């Protein structure tokens, strides 16, 4: 088994055994979505119109909450320094940890989204679209988020700073995630263009994220 797969397995196992982190993210997601109707009023027509937007924004916030975990514990106990000395390039270390974050947080949040759609009176035919766009969009959230997580390891007030650094990078994902759903609801063939751009953003992030995150990690170890 290659070093990449071993690291991925280790991180997934840690995330699974900790358990609490994923529960917190899912719980946060639920609470934010449940707060929206309380703030906007229980108008079901309004809610179903903006449901996809609410679900996307709340997903970004919930994912944001879990981003520090990508590097924090390993940086604290020195495991990251050991990994930097190992044979696996730091870019692949960052890639494996981002991928583990996507599998352990991004996918569960995407699975949870249609369930929460019930609370917002989301149209039935939007459910598969919502799930598909989130599955295609969440890699960008994990891999771009890793850059922010790497930059803020040693910062004061790291969590707040992380939000300020990372949320602007999420804007394209958010925009195309929502336009894909809305376009599909209006016309049968409006989905493809936005969905392809969304996937392209994710693919670019998968390449760019680990490179930038590794560069950020390296500057701290010199």
């Amino acid at each position, binding site marked *: 088994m290659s070093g990449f797969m071993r690291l991925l397995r280790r991180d997934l196992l840690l995330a699974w055994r900790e358990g609490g982190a994923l529960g917190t993210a899912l719980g946060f997601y639920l609470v934010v979505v449940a707060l929206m109707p309380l703030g906007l009023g229980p108008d079901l027509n309004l809610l179903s119109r903006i449901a996809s937007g609410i679900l996307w924004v709340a997903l970004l916030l919930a994912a944001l909450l879990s981003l520090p975990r990508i590097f924090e514990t390993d940086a604290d106990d020195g495991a990251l320094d050991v990994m930097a000395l190992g044979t696996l390039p730091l870019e692949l270390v960052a890639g494996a940890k981002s991928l583990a974050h996507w599998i352990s947080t991004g996918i569960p949040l995407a699975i949870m989204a249609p369930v929460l759609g019930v609370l917002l009176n989301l149209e039935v035919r939007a459910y598969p679209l919502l799930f598909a766009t989130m599955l295609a969009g969440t890699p960008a959230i994990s891999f771009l988020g890793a850059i922010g997580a790497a930059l803020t390891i040693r*910062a004061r007030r790291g969590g707040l*700073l992380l939000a300020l650094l990372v949320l602007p990078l999420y804007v394209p994902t958010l925009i195309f995630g929502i336009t894909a759903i809305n376009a599909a609801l209006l016309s049968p063939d409006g989905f493809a263009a936005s969905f392809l751009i969304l996937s392209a953003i994710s693919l670019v992030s998968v390449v760019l994220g680990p490179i930038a995150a590794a560069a950020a990690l390296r*500057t701290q170890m010199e």
Partner: protein
Amino acid sequence: MQNQSITQRLANPTRFMQLTDWLMPLTAAIAVVVIAAGLYLALFVAPPDYQQGETVKIMFIHVPSAWLGMMGYLMIAISSFGLLVFRHPLADVSAKAAAPIGAAFTLLALITGSLWGKPMWGTYWVWDARLTSVLILFFLYLGLMALRSALDDESLAAKQAAVLGLVGVVILPIIKFSVDWWNTLHQPASVVKLDGPAIHSSILVPLLVNAVGFSILFLALHMKAMRNEVLRRRVKALRLAEVERAAKRERTAAAPAE
């Protein structure tokens, strides 16, 4: 000496300070003259636009501000590259100095844009691609400044900010082409186009004069901010030296000659 490029010759902060000692006031003076001419042309000479009426006058300051907001980020990105790849000693000074100035121009582009939008579009703000991407640019500036202020170790802050600066540079092409890629309310580029500008010279000339003036002003402000930063680092280094010397003196006093 002859073989050195200009960036290499500028690498020495002392030489940079000597050079900008006279170059900075000169640049500032030129900027004031050019901007005065540009404002005169904009306010008194330029005719009202047949569509926009007199509000076209806002464009004379809106467009240069927006360009410089982007140029400021380009400056940061180039400096970040210079720091990470060439370890140029002044690169971080340049990147740090450019951030607040670029942020100020970006903010001005947003303010003047929304003041133009109210009479022309009927609203201060629309969420179209150009406006949203410029707003993101402003957030990036804020993020860069916040990242620096959150890290105590200055050389670490420099490198971390450089990484973020280079990541954020993808926003520049998005801003530039957002009006072409998406069909939005903001008008497409009308000055920088392959087949020549699409606006009449009576409007274009004051716009370009102002743009040149604002750019020179940007350079002057950037030089001044870099000078301040060099001085700030000297003060910091001297303070450190003072403390170290005091500690050494204490040590020798505590352990008398044996």
